């Protein structure tokens, strides 16, 4: 193996400046991305703690249904509320767009930064404030409204901790809006001249579609939460039936955001899938344009389907029928994506590296999540499954199965770019497989429990209700899932703390621009300006070179820093 000069002493964005303030006050999108990443992981651990609390509480025999006290029930109600709110607002929504998107998006565009770096920093700081408000909520009170904050319970019947939680979610909303706004402008204005819209990596299409939803939908949840706040503190009456208000109106406002928000969570995961399947099959993505356009179609359709959360809410039957019909429209583009990913594997050269294992898990998990969505879009069956564990299992398959697995797969994929180290050992693979198995064991039984009528948000079930078996397996699965995720995290942390040789610029063989700069990238992303832009999925542009244990351009430019750094003798 050729000696390399690619060692830690090369100046990169990680070691260019030092000290707490150089991170906290940075405007570098890469550092902000990493700070988001670790903050999101911290929140994920917090949300996961409450998830385990829920599962352990529901383990048959853990709590005696007959003698359960009001305090125990409140503690459970608090656990599922905090689990939901933290996972949605603090983990899944910011996970891929804010953490990975921030890190990767300008690199993929060959740009030096996002369009508004200071706004980017501001939105991270807003996020921190929002997160702290959530933590404050945990400390001061017993938040027990469910993450949906439905009035009149939230406004008139529960303790004041709703105020801090709602304020936190409101602020997090603005953080999300500013991130989306930043990405839209960056993608519009900072693409290199050669990169036309249809030469953009698919991850960027997904992030773009996500950003459109973020700026359009998030303001509506902002104002709805503000109204809850006003209602709670001043009894303004818009949602309160005693004052003539309409509680169903809040549900309209809430789901006008929260349904598109599902796609804020899922679309970026789909974007990562497209990158993974092309790179690890060493083949151009199949049906580039359909995947790109389906992202946009999903973003647009997501705005006209919110009423399927309200089929039994007292919404008029007319609207339920309209919304049911519209809901199916969003299923088609999702199906197209899955078929295109699978076709990309056809006649490929498929490598089972860790990111690809996550990618393949997602196909199956999203398959189940998406297909079970059909039962919930259909009016007749939704009436039966609404507010049961069937719904719980369905949205976990979509959110965890696609968004979270996509997030972890993305972290493993771009980890070499972030920290200059490849994590691809057997341990990481075991982590992925265990998570996959544990996840299925947790949530498959919930489908059955749900179809048998098991209502969600119950602090305990009596044995005579007949749900014990399903809860038992679900809790067992949660343990396995916990083990799998812990191993995945452990793999990353070990790599973070252990010093080793830096990875090549392009360990996986991606053709998108972020692989054209050294790992980790220098402070301003690219040393040569502008980078060469080609077809993002033309795999023949790079070839495997054993001496660097990675890929290099077939026709490198003379000043290509990756070639120069890695193999000085040959260059």
């Amino acid at each position: 193996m050729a000696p390399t000069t690619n060692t830690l002493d090369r100046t990169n964005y990680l070691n260019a400046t030092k000290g707490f303030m150089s991170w906290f006050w940075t405007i570098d999108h890469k550092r902000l991305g990493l700070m988001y990443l670790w903050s999101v992981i911290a929140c994920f651990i917090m949300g996961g703690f409450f998830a385990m609390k829920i599962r352990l509480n529901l383990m048959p025999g853990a709590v005696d249904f007959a003698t359960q006290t009001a305090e125990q029930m409140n503690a459970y109600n608090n656990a599922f509320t905090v689990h939901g709110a933290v996972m949605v607002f603090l983990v899944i929504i910011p996970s891929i767009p804010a953490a990975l998107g921030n890190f990767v998006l300008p690199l993929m565009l060959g740009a030096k930064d996002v369009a508004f770096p200071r706004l980017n920093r501001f939105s991270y700081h807003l996020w921190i404030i929002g997160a702290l408000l959530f933590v404050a909520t945990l400390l001061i009170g017993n938040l027990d409204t469910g993450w949906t904050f439905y009035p009149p319970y939230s406004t008139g019947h529960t303790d004041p901790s709703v105020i801090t939680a709602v304020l936190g979610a409101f602020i997090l909303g603005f953080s999300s809006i500013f991130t989306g706004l930043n990405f839209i402008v960056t993608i519009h204005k900072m693409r290199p001249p050669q990169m036309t819209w249809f030469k953009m990596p698919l991850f960027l299409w997904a992030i773009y579609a996500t950003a459109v939803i973020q700026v359009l939908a998030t303001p509506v949840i902002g104002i709805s939460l503000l109204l809850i706040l006003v209602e709670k503190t001043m009894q303004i009456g818009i949602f309160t039936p005693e004052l003539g208000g309409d509680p169903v109106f809040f549900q309209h406002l809430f789901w006008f955001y929260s349904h598109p928000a599902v796609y804020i969570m899922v679309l970026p995961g789909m974007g990562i899938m497209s990158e993974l399947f092309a790179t690890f099959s060493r083949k151009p993505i199949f049906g580039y344009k359909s995947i790109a356009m389906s992202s946009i179609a999903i973003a647009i359709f997501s705005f006209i389907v919110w009423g399927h959360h309200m089929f039994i809410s007292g919404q008029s039957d007319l609207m339920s029928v309209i919304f049911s019909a519209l809901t199916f429209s969003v299923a088609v583009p999702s199906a197209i994506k899955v078929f295109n990913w699978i076709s990309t594997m056809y006649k490929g050269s498929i490598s089972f590296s860790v990111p690809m294992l996550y990618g393949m898990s997602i196909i199956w998990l999203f398959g189940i999540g998406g297909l079970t969505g059909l039962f919930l879009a259909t009016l007749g069956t939704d009436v039966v499954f609404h507010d049961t564990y069937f719904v719980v299992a369905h949205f976990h398959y979509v959110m965890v199965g696609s968004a979270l697995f996509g997030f972890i797969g993305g972290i493993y994929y771009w980890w070499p770019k972030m920290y200059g180290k490849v994590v691809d050992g057997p341990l990481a693979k075991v982590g992925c497989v265990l998570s996959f198995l544990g996840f299925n064991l947790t949530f498959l039984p919930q489908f059955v429990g749900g179809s048998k009528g098991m209502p969600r948000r119950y602090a305990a079930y009596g044995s005579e209700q007949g749900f014990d078996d399903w809860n038992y397996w679900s809790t067992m699965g949660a343990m396995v899932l916990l083990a799998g995720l812990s191993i995945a995290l452990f793999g990353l942390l070990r790599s973070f703390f252990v010093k080793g040789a830096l990875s090549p610029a392009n360990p996986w063989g991606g053709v998108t621009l972020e692989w054209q700069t050294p790992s980790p990238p220098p402070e301003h992303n690219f040393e040569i300006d502008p980078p060469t832009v080609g077809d993002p999925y033309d795999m023949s542009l790079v070839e495997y070179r054993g001496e660097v244990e990675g890929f290099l351009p077939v026709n490198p430019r003379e000043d290509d820093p990756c070639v120069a750094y890695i193999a000085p003798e040959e260059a």
Partner: protein
Amino acid sequence: MSDSSHGSEGHIGHVLPLSILIKVFGCLVALTILTVITGKADMYGADLAVAMIIATCKASLVCLFFMHLKYDRPFHGMIFLFSVMCVGIFLAFVALDAESYQEHVKDFKANEIAEQQLGE
């Protein structure tokens, strides 16, 4: 590099003649007076429509001239129209829904009053 940036200055922004600004302002004031007058007059049920048409005219004037949309990139105008369209869909769906379930609300209110009277 600095040369090209110097040359591109001409493209940045559009200076609006003062005369146009004054004319637009005049129109806006006139329309405001008109809307007050029509608002007080009996329009045989078309009040809301007339008021909204006048307001939309005023809004268009502000958008096109004060906000430079007439001279700006069409994309910015599209963004704005897109937002208005989204609000339109949102509004139409919710209003349609609320109107269709009013019956049950009215039933409830009527019964509530009847029960109160029985109680007394």
